[in-house]
């Protein structure tokens, strides 16, 4: 077996798309009502994406490698593979005891010096009726961030609802909200960017506190 040539892989594009995916994972954490306390020098979306790609190209790191049995790699196939790796690393990182969550709900006010709880404790708590109520409050907190943009808020509400989001196609949403499909697509894009920014700004704010 010969070594793959990697000529069809644009590493810059892979890196950029991995950062976007890492941002989405962080935004999803915020939507779930979680925000990790990032330690100074801790992993931002860029750090995590870069670490994943460096592991892939570092010959001394054998944990993430392109098997020679696989077809010649392309940008798309390498990206699909590394997204899985990044996702695994991201979730492992969040499970780590080093990272503790802060739950942002109105009842807690703006006092972010709460000690926080581990993700495992939080997952357990979500199974209780109190936890479910708290989760609803967290969804409300995210929705509150869209108070100034009601046209986005109505879609975010559906997006945060596990069943609701996939229940409506863009065409159905356009009909329900008396608008065009292009407008729905545009609103979804704005929501996505806002959530990613929200996740990034929360991370920065937290880093300043630690």
């Amino acid at each position: 077996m010969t070594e793959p040539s990697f000529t069809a892989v644009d590493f810059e594009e892979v890196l950029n798309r991995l950062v976007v995916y890492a941002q989405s994972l962080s935004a999803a954490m915020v939507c779930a009502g979680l925000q990790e306390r990032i330690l100074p020098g801790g992993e931002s979306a860029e750090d995590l994406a870069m670490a994943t790609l460096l592991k892939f190209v570092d010959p001394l790191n054998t944990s993430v490698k392109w098997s020679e049995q696989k077809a010649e790699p392309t940008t798309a196939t390498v990206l699909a593979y590394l997204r899985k790796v990044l996702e695994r690393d991201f979730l492992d990182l969040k499970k780590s005891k080093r990272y503790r969550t802060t739950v942002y709900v109105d009842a807690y006010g703006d006092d972010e010096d709460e000690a926080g709880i581990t993700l495992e404790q939080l997952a357990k708590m979500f199974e209780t009726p109190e936890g479910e109520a708290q989760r609803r409050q967290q969804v409300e907190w995210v929705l509150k961030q869209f108070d100034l943009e009601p046209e986005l808020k109505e879609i975010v509400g559906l997006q945060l609802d596990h069943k609701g989001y996939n229940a409506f196609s863009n065409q159905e949403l356009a009909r329900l909200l008396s608008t065009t499909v292009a407008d729905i697509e545009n609103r979804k894009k704005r929501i996505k960017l806002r959530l990613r920014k929200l996740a990034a700004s929360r991370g920065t704010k937290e880093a300043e506190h630690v």
Partner: protein
Amino acid sequence: MSKKKTERLFEDIRNMAMRLTEDDEALTAEGVRKELRETGVDPDDLRARFHESVKQLAERERLANRAVPLSLKRAVDSTRPMDQLPSDPVAATAFADRWLEKFRSTFALPTSLEGARAYRALDDLSEPDQRGLDELEAELKKKVKKENEPQT
């Protein structure tokens, strides 16, 4: 038991992340760079940092008298600064193609492009949009001022 609950929570997070990225695959490389800029990430700075890191890895391999793998070579070549063409002709051609593609993709217009007007005085703009426009204006003025400063 607790492990299962954590996995379920993570599954929810994973699903939400998938929803947030479902349209990203259709984006061009330049579209992805634009999204990064909009979330405060400078893609040029990111590429430069990555390039430095992979260059160091390649250097480490050379100093240890080990062959630099093709994946690492390719990572170095495809993230070079625009003013450094790779010495290998094939890599140089691919590099130039990508460079040209950045210009071409900038002009790729969406199929459902619509014209719209919004006036601040008529309250057409939301507060975040107004803030965004003000920030862009301030940034532009700062850039113009910097470019016109006399060289010392």
